[in-house]
């Protein structure tokens, strides 16, 4: 990853008196796969539209390579967008679609023909020049939309939930394709999605957003293993989020049980949120763990079993390759390293949103 390429400074956008983005600051590096992740209405698409030039922020500036491009129209920006529903030109064939941007910028016919060949090869659709967009499947149309954007050699490719309309199998395939394309092209991808799995799979950096605020910026591993607040923990993957009290450094009390952990610096007797990933909850024979409970639900998920264990009056979500039948007495143990402590939200802005994930 290289230098800073584009900078969003103090961006605020208000729709109908309701702030969608509030003093957002964010930068994007060269050759980075960055994902804006969040539930609908979190401001991720607005951020992308501001980058693309389809929205003007009410306050703040967009700096591209040191230049203020806040008020530059989309056709003057060195970036291209792949739209959610492909947005291909249905009155043109595939070659004409791909050539659109190149013709506008007045490139020679030989250059354009070369580029079309190259782009179709890159998206694995050689020989589709003469086809019409309507005759292609959703996945193929999305590849064409990508090809149409990248032939213009943008510094940044903006992708607005490009895989949202595809089925699961195709989506997974396209995720690998996108990573490959990004590596081949060596340009920055800014990707918007509400699908946390997609974000974890593809990104170098994930920006988790909620209600117009950035909740956390980090690598997929950081975001998953060290969520900074309950919203992030809840949004990324499955998790058990319990209220707890930090008794002292490396000791947390959850439901009146003492759990050793590895977190320090929260002070003494501080209320905190505790995140435990379901795959980190270890079950054993009664009496061998920190708390005892009863298995109340069991579902087979393919790779693992998913169970709910009632302990201390709360449901604990557990994922394990070992099966414990419903009604079985078990004990719960959590490795200190797998307990993640988070500050309680201080203001409403950071308030975790309860999601049905």
């Amino acid at each position, binding site marked *: 990853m290289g230098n800073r390429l584009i900078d969003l400074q103090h961006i605020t956008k208000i729709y109908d008196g309701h702030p969608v983005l509030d003093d957002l600051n964010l930068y994007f590096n060269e050759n980075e796969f960055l994902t804006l992740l969040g539930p609908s209405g979190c401001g991720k698409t607005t951020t992308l539209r501001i980058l*693309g030039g389809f929205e003007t922020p009410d306050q703040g500036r967009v700096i591209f390579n040191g230049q203020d491009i806040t008020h530059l*129209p989309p056709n003057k920006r060195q970036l291209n967008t792949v739209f959610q529903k492909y947005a291909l030109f249905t009155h043109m064939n595939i070659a004409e679609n791909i050539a659109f941007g190149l013709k506008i910028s007045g490139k020679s016919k030989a250059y354009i023909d070369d580029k079309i060949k190259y782009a179709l090869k890159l998206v694995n659709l050689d020989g589709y020049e003469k086809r019409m967009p309507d005759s292609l499947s959703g996945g193929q149309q999305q590849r064409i939309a990508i090809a*149409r954007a990248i032939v213009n050699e943008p510094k940044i490719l903006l992708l607005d939930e490009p895989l949202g309309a595809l089925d699961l199998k195709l989506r997974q395939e396209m995720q690998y394709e996108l990573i490959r394309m990004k590596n081949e092209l060596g340009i920055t991808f800014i990707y918007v999605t509400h699908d946390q799995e997609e974000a974890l799979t593809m990104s170098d950096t994930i920006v988790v957003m909620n209600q117009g605020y950035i909740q956390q910026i980090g690598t997929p591993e950081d975001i998953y293993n060290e969520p900074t607040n309950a919203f992030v923990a809840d949004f990324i993957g499955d998790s058990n989020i319990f209220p707890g009290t930090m008794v002292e450094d490396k000791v947390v009390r959850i439901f009146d049980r003492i759990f050793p952990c590895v977190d320090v610096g929260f002070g003494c007797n501080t209320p905190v949120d505790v995140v435990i990933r379901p795959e980190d909850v270890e079950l054993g024979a009664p009496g061998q763990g920190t708390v005892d409970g009863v298995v109340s639900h069991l579902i087979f998920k393919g790779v693992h079993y998913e169970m709910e264990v009632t302990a201390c009056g709360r449901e604990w979500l557990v994922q394990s390759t070992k099966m414990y039948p419903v009604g079985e007495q078990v004990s719960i143990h959590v490795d200190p390293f797998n307990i993640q402590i988070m500050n309680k939200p201080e203001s409403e802005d950071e308030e975790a949103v309860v999601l049905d994930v």
Partner: protein
Amino acid sequence: MYKRSVSYPCILWSAAFIIIPLLFIFYYGLTDRTGAFTLSNLAAIATAENSKALILSLGLSLLSTAICLLLAYPLALILSGSKIGRSGFIIFLFVLPMWMNFLLRTLAWVVLLDTNGVLDTLCKLSGLPRFKIINTPAAIVFGMVYDFLPFMILPIYNVISKIDINVVNAARDLGANSFQTLYKVIFPLSLPGVISGITMVFVPSLTTFVISTLLGGGKILLIGNVIEQEFMKGTSWHVGSGLSLVLMLFIIVSMALSTKYDNGEGNVL
């Protein structure tokens, strides 16, 4: 699925008022007074008077269609792109006159355009040159544009407002300025509506005889007037039918062109 029997009233109606009259037209058009087969009624279009009327009709309807297109397209474009336009209120205003009787509306224009009519009087009072377009081809074009403009606006508006905004954004994103976006993307995508609008203005303009009678003062004969006279003034139903068949040919050609380019999206009426 509904039973076939529910379509019988419609079939009966079509038979009684469309198919059978049409067969009569064919019969009269292709026979003479004695009932013998002849093509002379069709050939009647070639007389100096009739061909002049046909050419004038074609000219005026093409002109009014072009004017309608030039007025309607920008309007539809602006309306479909604006909030107030999408609310449908302005479209409603444009469609409103269509609910009033067509004859009344045309008569209103007589009052407005007549010598010593409203516009003429206003010009006289304000010292401008006198406004005398009544009984000229210009007045007829005026009437055609006024009467048929909504038929141009609606299909075009309908098609443009259905164009995915992201397709327009994509064109901008790929470097096209507003003008390039219009003529490379929006206009080609709106063609079904344009073709539909052209047919819906051109065909009634070509066949009208009311507008030319009222606003042309009976001095300017369009092909519609010629046919009307053949029937109403009792000259010859045979020649009238023959000329109708010739006119029908022009209508069929323009309808065929429209169905070729229009996949149905543009038809709103």
